[in-house]
């Protein structure tokens, strides 16, 4: 299963090689080896039947958030810094993998017996250390070096209607693109499947995609915040699991193309396809980069609602995952995006 494999592979931003290799290995049997650009982005292009010279880009990012070793202390403990947005509160008491050798480690914390009011303070990067079970710097240096990536240790699991694992942001998107690449028929126009690097540290990977393929429109497929925790006001939830793919209209730095947004909504309403509208507008996606770079590409955002993202365990709904894939497939086969853009502004 693509999703399980993808979530268990380690690939923090800048370290996407194993993810890329996996996707390439899995997809190359279909009809082509795929293309890798200088930044490490991976592309599969499905040429159309020639009736249209237009190109639609589907994009998901391969990287996940993680940590990096910034110092190996004399006592063998590792100081770390976040790669992408990581809340230090989710780290104490968690297991991690360090470096290329996958050295196991734990992120320690003060035992509750010794605490007084410690619970009132938020753990911070000054205090977070990774313990790989050695007592001396020299011992640690045998397997770990400065700049090693640290990845969350977390097995992928299936519950009744849930997938649970790390990195569902955005391996969920990657898995959907992989499935679509296999399943979609040849269409009238070209479709490019882009698996990009370094989204989590500032949308660094996706820009180069534009010059390579000059797409006419793009769909960004992301794992997006649910934020439907019971302690939060329902009015301020971002998305809710099982309510279907989440369509976004505004995000950090970009109001998503209104022609595409309205066309997708109209299409889903007409066909009775379940969807939800994202309730929050914070956070960015590669859409901001694509729309604002070079000649600018109109983007739509179709997202898988994901609980607890950017932590060692995130949770998505099986139903939402399937429905997100299906909605994108329908949008593509019915040419919704190109039709929407034909209408002059």
């Amino acid at each position, binding site marked *: 299963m693509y999703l399980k494999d993808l979530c268990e592979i380690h690939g923090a931003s800048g370290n996407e090689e194993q993810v890329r290799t996996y996707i390439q290995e899995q997809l190359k049997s279909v009809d082509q080896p795929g293309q890798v650009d200088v930044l490490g982005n991976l592309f599969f292009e499905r040429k159309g039947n020639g009736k249209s010279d237009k190109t639609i880009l589907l994009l998901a990012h391969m990287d996940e958030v993680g940590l990096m070793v910034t110092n190996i202390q004399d006592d063998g403990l590792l100081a770390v810094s976040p790669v992408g947005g990581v809340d230090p509160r989710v780290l104490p008491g968690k297991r991690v993998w360090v470096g290329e050798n996958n050295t196991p480690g734990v992120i320690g914390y003060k035992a509750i017996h010794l605490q007084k009011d410690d619970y009132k303070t938020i753990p911070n990067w000054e205090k977070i250390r990774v313990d790989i079970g050695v007592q001396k710097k020299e011992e640690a240096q045998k397997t770990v070096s400065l700049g090693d990536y640290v990845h969350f240790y977390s097995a992928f699991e299936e519950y009744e209607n849930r997938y649970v694992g790390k990195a569902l942001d955005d391996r969920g998107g990657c898995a959907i693109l992989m499935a679509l690449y296999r399943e979609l028929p040849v269409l009238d126009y070209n479709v490019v499947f882009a698996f990009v690097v370094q989204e989590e540290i500032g949308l660094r990977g996706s820009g180069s995609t534009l010059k390579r393929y000059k797409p006419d429109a793009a769909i960004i497929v992301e794992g997006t915040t649910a934020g439907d925790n019971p302690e939060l006001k329902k*009015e301020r939830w971002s998305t809710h699991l099982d309510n279907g793919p989440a369509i976004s209209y505004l995000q950090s730095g*970009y109001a998503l193309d209104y022609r595409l947004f309205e066309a997708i909504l109209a299409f889903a309403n007409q066909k009775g396809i379940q969807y939800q*509208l994202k309730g929050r507008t914070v956070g960015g996606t590669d859409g901001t980069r694509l729309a604002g770079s070079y000649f600018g590409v109109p983007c739509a955002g179709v997202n898988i609602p994901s609980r607890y993202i950017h932590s060692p365990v995130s949770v998505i709904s099986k139903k939402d995952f399937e429905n997100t894939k299906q909605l994108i497939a329908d949008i593509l086969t019915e040419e919704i995006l190109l039709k929407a853009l034909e209408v002059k502004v």
Partner: protein
Amino acid sequence: MKELIKKLAQVSAPSGRERKAHLAILEELEGFIDGHRFDNVGNLIVWKNGNGENKKKIIFDGHADEIGVVITHIDERGFLRIDPVGGVNPLMLLGVLMNFDGITGIVSYEAETDEDARKSLTQPSYDRLFVDIGATSHEDACKKVHIGQFGSYLSPFFDLDPMLVSKSMDDRVACAIVVQTIKETQHPYHDIYGVFAVQEEVGLLGAKVAAYDLHADIAIAVDVTAHTDTPKGNKRMDLQLGKGPAIKIKDKGSISDETIVRLLTTCAEENQIPFQYEVLVFGGTDAQGYQLTGAGIKAGTLSIPCRYVHSPHEMVHIQDVTNAVRLLKAVALKPNW
């Protein structure tokens, strides 16, 4: 000129929903331009060809979008929750009317307890605000508005001569300046490109794309800026309404290209146009987008000092506006820099 400013400022067109502003601008420019087009992200680009021997390609940019809000939730009783579009301090919204494509909403705040009410008023946040469109139920509200719908301030235009007040002077006053400049410059020396850029308020998005497309020699962003001439106004800067358009030296997003500062200064002096210099300790304009994209375009900003920027009532001085038009006309006509 006042009518033009009123017409453009009163259009409701937040970032990403600039269509109505663009149509109003095009209507004004009909018969005065050599062509126009919309680019991939929806920027309106108009042009007027110059007849000069050594003509250059000049961009005059006024962003078409305005700040606003977007509906993120509709509750069981038909009240709306919102998020900002661009930099809208929630403090500005308390008690304000918003316009969602013709549906009027009143912004109010949660006040479950005295303490809660106090908190809403002293530390306003989008978590505590809601909008009342007079709906009697969820279903009733859904007939009028939808999640993902953008709204803008609903506030009128006032002529407090010589001051003008309206919503969205940022940046429709600049759109009006660019429109008027093109109208009044029948035979420019240089090729003039008017860029009515989209999505400035959320991140200079349109300007970045226009910069890549147009390969211009220079770009002048026209935008509103701060003021310091009100009671206890900012002491670190000097910007006064009525003292003339402000030639920007620097803000947080860009340092204006020397050649443009010199060009604007020379044009102002040669034509006895009053002006002031501006060093803004915060803020940014589309000039940043033009400078940083592709190989970069020499860019600077001509500012209109404006009181109460990003509030429902933004105030400018009519003479700063007309002098900005005179200044840009001089740039369009000046053969050698």
